[in-house]
């Protein structure tokens, strides 16, 4: 049974061969699979994605052979993480500081959501109009 990583609204399947769980709450993932699924690569200068590199202070905590500790990975990036090794699912969230910076920018983040018929809509398709976002619920 494969593993699932939830990252920034995406649901990413990861082959069970690429993952080990040495103890509950800990998940090691092959560096190649991590790069393929999350886009981050371990280089001498740190964890890199595109032109961005984040320095790694404690490489021993992050790397075990050819595998990367997902909890340590999240810590390097300052992102909240939840690992449920028993259920084979892990999820990465947005750091409070990144979220605060995004909100302070006042740029309305784009999203894609379905209507009842399953048709997908984005916010950006309404550029040029005054849009009201109205979040509501039955509860």
């Amino acid at each position, binding site marked *: 049974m494969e593993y699932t990583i939830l990252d920034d609204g995406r649901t990413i399947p990861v082959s069970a061969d690429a993952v080990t769980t040495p103890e509950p709450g800990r998940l090691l993932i092959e560096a190649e699979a991590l790069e393929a699924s999350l886009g981050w690569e371990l280089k001498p200068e740190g964890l890199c994605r595109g032109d961005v590199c984040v320095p790694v202070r404690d490489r021993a905590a992050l790397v075990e052979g050819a595998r990367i500790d997902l909890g340590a990975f999240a810590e390097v990036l300052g992102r909240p993480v939840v690992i449920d090794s028993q259920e084979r699912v892990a999820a990465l969230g947005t750091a409070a500081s990144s979220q605060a910076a995004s909100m302070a920018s*006042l740029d309305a983040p784009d999203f894609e959501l379905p209507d009842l018929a399953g048709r997908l809509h984005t916010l950006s398709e309404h550029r040029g109009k005054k849009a009201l976002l109205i979040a509501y619920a039955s509860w």
Partner: protein
Amino acid sequence: MPVWQALYEELGSEGFVPITIALDRAEDARPFIEASKATHPSLIDEAHRTAELYHIVNVPTIIWIDESGRICRPHDSQYATDTFTAFHKKLSGPYLDMIRDWVRTGAGAMSAEEIRAHQPIPDEASQLARVERAVAWHLLQDGRAEAAEPHFERAVELAPKDWTIARGSMPLRGGNPFGPEFFALAEKGKFDYALEALTPTHAPEDPEASPGSG
């Protein structure tokens, strides 16, 4: 919902679009959407993606976005009808008039400083709560309700005042968001209006008075 649809019919030709987002399962939102005969974008956000992106902590939450895609009035707890006015003391009429003014004249948009001062602030606990909620929702959708439960529980512990999590997960966990479990939390003071202190619009209770702003 019918009010937003009516406002769309009134102002749609003037470059206005209401985007209603149900932080709900589709089956729970369906009656609301069908009753309003929505032709405006009426969307379903089961995974709470917009709650994550915009740090929405309560419903209703209304955010104004201008023609260039910038937020010009932040998280506001306002109502389209007066059904619950006895509870929240807000009249819908003055607020709807503010929207009409905004569409026609641009009035009501706030300065960047004012907006930032009224935005709810995410912290580490609230961000981790959203991740726990995402895991819980993933497991629930996959038919693993029992495995989802501890994640829901931790999400609520981490962000007890976030209604999208604490109250919004009640129907998903077999609870009743209008039942004793809600009122028990309310009594403990855990369910105060998370947004109330920040809400930028204080529409007057007297319908004869002019709409407030800022």
